[in-house]
């Protein structure tokens, strides 16, 4: 039996029934990782630590005591999540030797369950990019077709799950970085409500937009992983205090009475014909299965992309200033004075895309431009938030494609950043409005690459999203599913 093909829940059941051990699972995945090196999914493999944790987990399981859900289950996390003693590069040359002295809160939570951490996933540098072509550690390949990008910035996390290198993974999503690669690799990607999962230890790209979330093979796996990582954290001032539902119990196998919001402005933003066909087909399906369609107004939605690139770059410019060559990371060798140390270290340490966004961010924050860009963007952001809030007075979920089209080939958009940015047009409004959203596969394009559909919910309505997504996953089918 090939254990690597299991879902998270299936593996969990086999462990529980003692039909497999965590060490056996872990070894299968480590072997698979070895065999698929050309995908370039991982930046760091934690072989020894993984096996040690697996042995520990097996002892716990064999002792017969009750144990937490993720005990002994092999997973992978994105390389911008701090792991004590394990280098955390953020896909950047700057941090090639940076080993954090502390764990991110989500890592603490996984460790507390004795989940097996197989390695740290490749990613676009500092989570900036939508194709994984901006990693200092090389491109990650799409396991479905190696000519195509896996999406980004959590490309490694998506490719790892798609290639069965782990049972599930964690990514981070600032403007679509979980959902877009999930869509490109045919997976489930969940971006939780801002404040649901602690950001402590997640190396910040844009602090007001970043969220950690799961990439999985099934919706129920997503619920399981979310139930472990969610929850308020006193180390993160932006994490929300409220009583968590049990995400594993969200499933009713019914969407009867569900009010699905349809926004013409949103759907008309920009989408390929084949994607449009798929989206309409899902909408029709939902209607036939008892959901009500509701027209909603999101007339400022077209401002989202501009708002996003102003706000995200402003925050990124500030967040990335700490990488100055003084304390850790790259330090240029030949400098004559302090400003040269800064200038040369940063010039050598950062990639092109990161530099582009730092410059953009510093520009919109600089005196004389602050009001015209940053302040206006924050105003527009508020307007977009309000529109979503109003819409959610009359609907439960809003539907859209995850991306305008299916995965593209390497090099197709690298010369045109603006076109690359446009691939985020459906995902960024969700981050701007601090909402949760999930991407699930709903079809295939001409190029035989998957199409993803996005369901957006009101704040902290992950349960509704998971239930709806689960229903679609189970009952909706398309040619070639």
């Amino acid at each position, binding site marked *: 039996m090939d254990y690597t093909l299991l879902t998270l829940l299936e593996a969990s059941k086999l462990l529980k029934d003692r039909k497999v051990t965590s060490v056996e699972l872990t070894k299968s995945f480590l072997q698979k990782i070895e065999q698929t090196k050309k995908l370039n999914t991982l930046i760091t493999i934690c072989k020894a630590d993984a096996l040690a944790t697996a042995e520990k987990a097996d002892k716990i399981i064999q002792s017969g005591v009750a144990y937490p859900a993720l005990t002994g289950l092999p997973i992978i996390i994105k390389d*911008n*999540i*701090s792991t004590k003693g394990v280098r*955390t590069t*953020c896909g950047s040359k700057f*941090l090639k030797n*940076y080993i*954090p*002295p*502390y764990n*991110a809160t989500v890592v603490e939570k996984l460790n507390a369950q004795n989940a097996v951490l197989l390695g740290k996933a490749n990613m676009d540098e500092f989570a900036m990019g939508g194709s994984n072509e901006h990693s200092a550690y090389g491109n990650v390949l799409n396991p479905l077709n190696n000519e195509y990008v896996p999406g980004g910035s959590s490309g490694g996390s998506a490719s790892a799950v798609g290639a069965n290198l782990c049972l599930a993974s964690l990514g981070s999503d600032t403007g679509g970085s979980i959902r877009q690669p999930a869509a490109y690799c045919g997976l489930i990607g969940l971006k939780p409500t801002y404040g649901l999962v602690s*950001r*402590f*230890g*997640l*190396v*910040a790209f*844009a*602090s*007001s937009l970043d969220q950690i979330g799961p990439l999985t093979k099934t919706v129920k796996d997503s619920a399981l992983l979310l139930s472990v990582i969610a929850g308020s954290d*006193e*180390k*993160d*001032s*932006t994490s929300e205090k409220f009583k968590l539902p049990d995400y594993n119990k969200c499933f009713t196998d019914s969407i009867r009475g569900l009010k699905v919001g349809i926004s013409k402005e949103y759907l008309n933003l920009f989408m390929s014909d084949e994607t449009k066909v798929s989206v309409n087909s899902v909408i029709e399906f939902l209607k036939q299965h008892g959901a009500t369609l509701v027209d909603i107004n999101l007339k400022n939605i077209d401002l989202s992309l501009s708002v996003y690139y102003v706000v995200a770059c*402003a*925050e990124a*410019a*500030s967040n990335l*200033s*700490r990488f*100055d060559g*003084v*304390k850790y990371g790259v330090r240029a060798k030949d400098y004559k004075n*302090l400003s040269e140390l*800064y200038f040369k270290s940063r010039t050598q340490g950062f990639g092109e895309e990161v530099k582009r966004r730092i410059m953009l961010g*510093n520009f919109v*924050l*600089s*005196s004389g431009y*602050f009001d015209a860009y*940053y302040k206006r963007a924050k105003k527009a952001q508020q307007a977009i938030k309000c529109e979503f809030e109003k819409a959610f007075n009359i609907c439960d979920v809003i539907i859209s494609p995850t991306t305008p089209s299916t995965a593209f080939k390497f090099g197709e958009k690298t010369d045109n950043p603006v076109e690359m940015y446009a691939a985020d047009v459906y995902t960024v409004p969700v981050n701007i409005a601090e909402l949760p959203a999930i991407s699930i596969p709903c079809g295939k394009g001409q190029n035989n690459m998957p199409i993803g559909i996005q369901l957006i919910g009101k704040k902290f309505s992950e349960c509704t999203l998971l239930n709806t997504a689960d229903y679609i996953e189970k009952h909706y089918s398309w040619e070639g599913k």
Partner: protein
Amino acid sequence: MKYQTVIGLEIHAELCTESKVFCSCKNGFGFSPNTNCCPVCTGLPGALPVLNSKVYEYAIKAGLSMGSKISKYSVFERKNYFYPDLPKAYQISQLEYPLCIGGHIELELNGVTKIIRLNRIHVEEDAGKLIHSENKGSLIDFNRCSVPLIEMVTEPDLRSAQEAVALLEKIRQILVYLGISTGKMEQGAMRCDVNVSLMPEGSSVYGTRTELKNISSFRSVFAGIEYEVKRQTDILEKGGKVIQETRRWSDEKMQSFAMRNKEESQSYRYFPDPDLLPITVTPEYVQSIMAKLPRLPEQRIKQYVTEYNLPIYDATLIASERETAEYFEDCLALYNKPKEISNFIMSDILRLIKGQNQSLKNIPVNPKKLTDLLKMVSDGKVNVTVAKTVLEEIWKTDEDPEKAVVRMGLMQVNDMAEIEKIVREIIAQNPQAVEEFKAGKSKALAFFVGQIMKATKGKANPQIVNELVIKLINI
């Protein structure tokens, strides 16, 4: 032409909370380099700040004591700039929505009261410290990173170096009184930036200002302003123009040096810190802090003079430090003789505590013991001189005054017969002094009294001794 000096100050004070402003590291002084810091205050990737609410409480105390309006809504912003002592490359500070708005401080100068307006008080974090060594290059100590600071910004209401220093002293006294800052200048607990400009006397249009950065002693503030006034006056008198610039003050050279001018000035690219949510302060919370504020020196001095009839000198000295004032008031509650108490505090208690690194809160002679001793004086059980000896003794032994007096055998002798016996002996032994006394030399009386007190170890009631000497010699 005569010029009017115009000065505005930006005063930074470290708050003495238990822990730092955005992490749980200790807020203290004197740790070995880089042993009192964590991922948060050293700005490691992914670490996040969380506000220590005590810092806000302390800052609100400062605001209320200086007449500021406490904002219901305040926001932390990032002040972005590169410097090795700033590990995040931004300082968390406040700009558009500071915690305290407005305010004022009253200064007494040569008998005239002057009001200095405050523009604002905001909360921010301190940076680390650079140590430049000759053979190891520049070293960084991050211990001071994220130590809480308040910055008090005045309006340009000061007109001389004296006024500036008086204001600083006043602010220091208030902060120490409130118990929110150590005020220890030598440990960098207070620093300030000084803005100086000149305008023709009688004018109301301010001249171009220069800013002296980060001065850490009152003496340097004074010298810096005097130097800058002279420098600017020289420029203006030669028909030149003062350039708006930031200048560095050197204590060694007693000169200021240009650091950067307006064109080179940094754009700090302030924006709201997305890691910290805006803070709401309720009126009820402000009220609860207001209720706990200590009375400040002015109020106390006024009360001491008018209600307790203390001389202004005594009142000012006793009220100048909160612990002294509280000790005095505690004594007063036990024994209603203000002047007797203030005499003992000023001449003995403050002398004994000096250099002992002790606080009036926990000295062995607490208000109960001191007032018991004073009662013994007024009851004629000991005289003042003995009381001072006893005070020093019980400071060491922690005894009750009465027990100590008995143990030391110092209870005053009021028995006429017993004293008379001693007086007669002394007279008999000193015939020459008797002659002198009879010849009208008053010194001789003092001699006799001295001899008798010596013989009785100071226990004899001095009044009785006096009367007896005169009576017995004149027989």
